[in-house]
Structures are given as C-alpha cells and as structure tokens.
C-alpha cells in the first residue's frame, strides 16, 4: 500500500461564502482522507479568509462551515500551510485564524498546531514536491 501513497496538495485561493469554491474544496479534502494519501492544504491569496476565527452567519443565514476545518486533524490531515504574504496584504495575522490542531500519535497524542506559516518562496518549493495539486 505504501508504494501507492501520493502527495496530494489542495490549494485554496478564494474567500468563503461569496462563491462555493471553499466549501466544495473542503468536501473533496474530507473525501480524500478516506484514501490514506499524504494530504496537505494551502491557504493563500483570499483563501486565508476560509479559516478566520469567529465566523458568525446568524444574520446572513448562510451555513457556517468553518467548524469543519477543526475536524481535519482527526482525519490525519495536519499540514495546513498559510502564506505569510497573503495574511500581511490583508491586514491579518495568525491571531485572526482559528486554532486548528491535531493529536500526534508519535508523541503520546500531544496536541499540536496544524497551521504552518510559510513564505511565498517556501510555498513554491512545497508545490514543486507534490504528485497531485488541486486548486480552487
């Protein structure tokens, strides 16, 4: 089986709610978790808005799907790369994002952050090393 594991990267570039890209991508990611692949997610450009904390859809009446990102850690999806420059251009810091964590089975199930802040240049290298890249 291990020979068949491929590196899948899902690149999220769009703000949530205004279009359906963010929700559709999240659903594909959750499906991919069932196939035991090496999955990572990227949040860059307006994609960083997908994982802001305190999303409140009460007044707009839309479905708030942001809590679903917190489940990713339970599906062994714990490589969430956030592009530093994208945050800065939008006046945001990591503090604006949800605390997304996973439990590390190799370290006595210690809770660790899933989000890794990366530069644009580092992201280019990460993308270069993938088998499959799916952008939305």
């Amino acid at each position, binding site marked *: 089986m291990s020979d068949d594991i491929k590196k899948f990267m899902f690149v999220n570039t769009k703000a*949530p709610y205004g279009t359906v890209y963010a929700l559709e991508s999240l659903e594909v990611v959750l499906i991919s978790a069932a196939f035991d692949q090496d999955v990572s997610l990227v949040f860059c*450009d307006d994609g960083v808005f997908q994982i802001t904390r305190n999303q409140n859809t009460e007044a707009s009446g839309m479905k708030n799907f942001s809590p679903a990102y917190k489940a990713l850690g339970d599906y062994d999806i714990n490589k969430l790369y956030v592009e530093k420059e994208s945050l800065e251009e939008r006046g945001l810091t990591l503090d604006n994002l949800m605390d997304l964590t996973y439990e590390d089975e190799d370290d006595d199930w210690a809770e660790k952050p899933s989000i890794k802040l990366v530069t644009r240049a580092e992201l280019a290298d990460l993308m270069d090393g993938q088998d499959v890249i799916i952008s939305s």
Partner: protein
Amino acid sequence: MAMLHTVNKSPFERNSLNSCLSKSKEGSTILLIEDAVVGALKGTVIADKLTAAMSNKNIYVLGSDLNTRGFTEAEILDGIKVVDYSGFVDLVAEHSNVQSWL
C-alpha cells in the same frame, strides 16, 4: 440625487472595486457586500486608497456579510459605516439609482 454603487467581489482578487472608485462621482455612495466586505479591513494593501476615497464619497459595509467572514465593526477602517439589511434598503431608497459592480 447621488448614485449608490454596490461591489460584491474581493478587491484582492478582482478589479471591480478599483473600477468603481475610478468611475463613481463625488458625493456618491459605495456599499461593500458579499466577498467585497474584506476590503473594508484595517491594514490591507488597499486601505490607503479606500481612506482617500472617503474624502468625497460615502463608504458602507454590510454588517452581516462582515460577521459571516469572522470580522466585526472594530476591525474595519475608520470612516466606513456598517449597515444591516434594513440599512441596505434605506440606502437604495435614498439614492436615485443603483449601479452594481460585479
């Protein structure tokens, strides 16, 4: 009466807010809705441009769309006013015409 302009796309992804700012008259009103609300945040690369526009235009943002994306009134640029759905209706009624920038 002045024109009400609505913008619904993120200024970081599309040029529609830019087009709106360059083709709207002094005294007109611009309302940011849907994905455009993120343009109202403090500290962004377009903050200076938006602040400059406020010298002769009124800028509003739809509060419910702001809250949906995780932000509140405290996080937007000084001078931008927040409206709810009934405030949106009032703006439409108060202006002579509405132009949507998509």
